[in-house]
C-alpha cells in the first residue's frame, strides 16, 4: 500500500478530507462573522448557537413534520435567519451607538440562553440525522474511498462562499453593502435604507450559520453543544485571517481545517490546540492577521 512518511496514503487522505470538511465549516462561519462585523461592528458570539439551531431545525423538521434534507437545506437557514433578524431588531439595534463590547456580551448571553434551552430539552447526547438517500454511499477514487456526502459538504460550502463573494463584490446590492460598511451615514444620505440593510445582513449571517448547521447535521450528531465547541475555534480563525476580506476568510478557514487534519495524522496530541498555536504565531509576526488591514 502506498504511504507518505510511513503513514498509509488512505489514512492521510481520509484525515485531509476531514480537515477540508472542518475547514468548510470554519470558512462559512467566519464568512458570516466577517459580514456581520463589517456592518454592525460587533462580534456575534451567538454564531455558534445559530449554527446549532440550523442543525436542530433540520432535525426537528424531519422528526415532527417529516420534511427531508433538501427542503430543510432552504427552510432551516430561513428560520435561523428570521430569528437573527428579530434579535437584531429587538436587541442589537439598541446597542448601535455603544462600545462594540456590549454587542459581544449581549450575544454571549443569548448563546448561553439558546444553548441552555436546547440542552434542557434534548440533553447532551446528540440526535442522529440520516444522510439523505441521494448522497449515501461512496466512491472509490483509487487512492482513497470518498464518502459522497463529505464530498458534497465541501463542494456545497465552496459554492456558498463563492456565491456570497460574487453577491458582495459584483452586484449593485453588494456595492451598497460595501459602501455602508465604509460610511453608513453617507450611504444613508443617498436615500438607502441602511437600518434595513443592517437587519438583513445580520439575518443573512445567521442564515449562513444555520446552513452550515444543516450541512453538519448528518456528519456530527445534532448536539446542543456543537455550537460552542466550534465557535471558539472560528474566533481563532478570524483572528488569524483578519476580517478584512471575504476570500481571505474562506482561504484561512479551509487552510486551517487542512492543517488541523494533517496534525491529527502526524501529531494527534496537538490536533486540538494547533489552531490556537498558529494564532499565537500570527499575532507575533503579523498582528493584524494574514489578510487584515493594519489598524
Amino acid at each position, binding site marked *: 500500500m502506498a504511504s507518505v512518511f510511513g503513514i498509509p496514503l488512505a489514512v492521510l487522505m481520509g484525515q485531509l478530507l476531514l480537515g477540508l470538511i472542518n475547514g468548510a465549516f470554519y470558512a462559512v462561519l467566519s464568512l458570516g462573522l466577517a459580514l456581520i462585523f463589517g456592518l454592525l461592528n*460587533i462580534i456575534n458570539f451567538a454564531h455558534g448557537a445559530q449554527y446549532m439551531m440550523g442543525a436542530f431545525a433540520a432535525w426537528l423538521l424531519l422528526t415532527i413534520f417529516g420534511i427531508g434534507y433538501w427542503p430543510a437545506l432552504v427552510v432551516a437557514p430561513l428560520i435561523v435567519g428570521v430569528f437573527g433578524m428579530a434579535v437584531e431588531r429587538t*436587541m442589537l439595534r439598541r*446597542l448601535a451607538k455603544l462600545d462594540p*463590547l456590549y454587542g459581544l456580551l449581549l450575544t454571549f448571553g443569548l448563546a448561553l*440562553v439558546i444553548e441552555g434551552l436546547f440542552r434542557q430539552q434534548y440533553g447532551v447526547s446528540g440526535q442522529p440525522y440520516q444522510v439523505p438517500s441521494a448522497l449515501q454511499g461512496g466512491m472509490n477514487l483509487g487512492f482513497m474511498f470518498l464518502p459522497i456526502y463529505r464530498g458534497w459538504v465541501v463542494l456545497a460550502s465552496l459554492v456558498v462562499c463563492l456565491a456570497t463573494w460574487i453577491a458582495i463584490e459584483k452586484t449593485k446590492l453588494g456595492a451598497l453593502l460595501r459602501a455602508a460598511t465604509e460610511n453608513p451615514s453617507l450611504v444613508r444620505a443617498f436615500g438607502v435604507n441602511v437600518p434595513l440593510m443592517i437587519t438583513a445582513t445580520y439575518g443573512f449571517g445567521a442564515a449562513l450559520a444555520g446552513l452550515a448547521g444543516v450541512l453538519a447535521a448528518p456528519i456530527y450528531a445534532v448536539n446542543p453543544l456543537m455550537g460552542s465547541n466550534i465557535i471558539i475555534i472560528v474566533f481563532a480563525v478570524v483572528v488569524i485571517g483578519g476580517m478584512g476580506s471575504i476570500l481571505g476568510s474562506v482561504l484561512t478557514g479551509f487552510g486551517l481545517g487542512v492543517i488541523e487534519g494533517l496534525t491529527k495524522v502526524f501529531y494527534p496530541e496537538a490536533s486540538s490546540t494547533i489552531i*490556537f498555536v498558529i*494564532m499565537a504565531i500570527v499575532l507575533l509576526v503579523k498582528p493584524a492577521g494574514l489578510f487584515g488591514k493594519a489598524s
Partner: protein
Amino acid sequence: MNRWIVALIVVAVALAAPFAIYPIFLMKALCFALFAVAFNLLLGYTGLLSFGHAAFFGMASYVVGHAMTKWGVTPELALLAGVVAAGLMGLGFGYLAIRRQGIYFAMVTLALAQMVYFFCLQAPFTHGEDGIQAIPRGNLFGLIPLDEPHTLYYFVLAVFALGCAIVWRAVHSPFGQVLRAIRENEPRATSLGYRTRHYKLLAFVLSASLAGLAGGTKALVFELASLTDVHWHTSGEVVLMTLLGGMGTVLGPIAGAFVVVMIENKFADAGDWVTILQGLIFVIVVLLFRKGIVGEAVDWWQRRKAQAAG
C-alpha cells in the same frame, strides 16, 4: 468619622458571618469575588475585556492541587506557586493579546484560554476528566491546620482582603490613573508619553496573578481542581459577575460575585436553568442597566443628593 464607622461595621460583619451563614458558601463567594475584583482591574479600569480569565483561575488551582498533593508543601507556598504560574501565563498571554485591540483582544484571550483547556484535558498532572481530587489543606506556615471550617474561612477572608488591598492600591495610584487614561483614550495617553503597552501588560499580569490567587484558594477550599475551572464558561461567569455588579466600581464585582454564587447555590439542582438564567441576566444588564447594581445605586444616591442640595 463616618468612614471609619462603616469600615468597622464591614469588618465586624465579615468576621461574624461564618456563625450565621454556611462557611463553604461564604468562602466560595469570597474566592469568586476576588476573581471578579482581579478581572475588573482589566475590564473596569483599563477597558480590556478578557474572555479567558478562567485559564489563570483554573491553572493556579491545578498548580496548588499538584503542589499540595505531590510536593507536600505548606498551603501558603502552594498558593505562591499558583500565583507565580498564573502570573507567568498572564505575561505570555498578555504579550500576545495586547497586540490587538477591543473585540479582537476578547477573541484572542478566549482562544488562548481554550488552548489551556485542551492542554489541561490532556496533560497527565491534571488527571483529565477526574481533576485533582482530595487535595489536602495542610497547615498554614506549617503551624495552623486549615481543616477546621472557621479557621479556613478566616484564612480565605485574609487572602481576599489582601487581594482587594492590592487592587485598591493599584487603582488609586499614579499607575491606576494611567490605566484609566488608557481606558478613556489610548492614543491620547500615548501622545502624552506613556508607554501604554507596558501599562496594559503590567495590568494584565497583575490581574492574572490575582485571578490565580483566587483560583488557588478555591482549590484549597473545595479540595478539588477540575476542568470546570478552566472552561470558557467560568470565563463568562466572571464577566457576568463584574458586569452585573458594576464594572469600574470597587464594590461592584464583589456584589456581583455574591449574587451569581447565590443564584448558583439556589438553583444547583435545576441544571441547565442556571445557564439560561445567567444568559438572561447578561441580556437584561446589557440592555437595561449597563452600570450594574452598584453603579446604578451610586448614580441614584448622587441624584438624590443633588436634589436635596438644589
